């Protein structure tokens, strides 16, 4: 019969996020600190093909749009600007839930080229949740003006993911960005994010907790990340997992019933 999580799971969890696409279109998430030009990147990629609304059940604004590249349509979701994904605020919770449960085909983390160190905190956190990350170093024109030179190749090797410099304001780097998004989303490029290694004590704890996590939720969500959050004492994440999987199960049940009817 074949109504497995594989076939219905991802589109039903995405439905919970009100992602309006044909279910077979590729979904790209846009993450980044506030004030990195994330919205400029979003607008530059989507042009007029966008609309704003709210995240389901929240008062946080959301912009959703699309762009076409290589004959394919990509849905682009602008996540709220956040400094981290620790779910301290509604914005962070919304961003984290989307990355974790809607599992975009690729996530672009927009960072400020003039202030890399602070911005990479979020990039590393995103890379702990998903492998399909592209780092977009925006405001490269500002960096140039300040005589800052960024070694893109070195950064890419250090992070283990593609890095694309852009100055979205002037349209610079956008076609390279779309190409990189397309490569990752279609599996042509498979980034291998460098793992953040914690202290021995923490790594030992991860080794103990991770197998148990895998037993319970399988490999649908990055188990190392979930283990870390549990060790961190993140009860909100546990509640969120329960919520989404229960929602998803009831939607799956609905879908199954519809087929039988």
């Amino acid at each position: 019969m074949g109504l497995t999580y594989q076939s219905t799971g991802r589109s039903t969890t995405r439905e919970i996020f009100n992602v309006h696409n044909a279910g077979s279109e590729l979904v790209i998430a846009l993450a980044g600190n506030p004030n990195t030009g994330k919205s400029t990147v979003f607008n530059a990629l989507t042009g007029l093909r966008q609309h704003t609304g709210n995240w389901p059940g929240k008062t946080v604004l959301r912009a959703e749009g699309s762009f076409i590249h290589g004959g394919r349509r990509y849905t682009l979701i602008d996540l709220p600007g956040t400094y981290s994904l620790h779910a301290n605020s509604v914005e962070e919770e919304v961003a984290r839930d989307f990355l974790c449960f809607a599992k975009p085909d690729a996530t672009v983390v927009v960072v400020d080229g003039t202030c890399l160190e602070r911005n990479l905190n979020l990039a590393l956190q995103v890379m702990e949740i998903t492998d399909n990350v592209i780092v977009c170093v925006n405001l490269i024109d500002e960096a140039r003006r300040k005589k800052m030179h960024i070694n893109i190749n070195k950064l890419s090797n250090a992070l283990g993911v593609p890095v694309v410099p852009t100055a979205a304001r002037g349209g610079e780097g956008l076609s390279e960005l779309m190409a990189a998004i397309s490569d990752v989303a279609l599996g042509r490029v498979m980034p291998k994010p460098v793992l953040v290694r914690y202290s021995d004590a923490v790594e030992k704890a991860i080794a103990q907790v991770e197998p148990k996590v895998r037993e319970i939720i399988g490999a649908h969500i990055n188990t190392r990340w979930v283990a870390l959050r549990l060790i961190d004492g993140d009860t909100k994440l546990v509640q969120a997992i329960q919520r989404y999987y229960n929602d998803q199960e009831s939607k799956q049940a609905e879908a199954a019933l519809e087929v039988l009817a």
Partner: protein
Amino acid sequence: MNNSTPLNRLGNGCCALVTELNAEGLTRRRLLDLGLVPGTKVEVIRRSPLGDPIAFNIRGAIIAFRKEEAEKVLVVQVS
């Protein structure tokens, strides 16, 4: 032994290293996310006319803190 001072007590132009955070929960988390982990260098840029908030340079970013927030960050001054 502990000659740390709260960050808000430092004058404009001073540099310091973070030693610890006198905060818990969400506040602590926010300070950490902004880069104020122990050992981080902080530079006091300027104060607004009424003395509050204060602008700091933390890891290349200029961030403004109110006195109540800056008070929670303990630092040792460096020359």
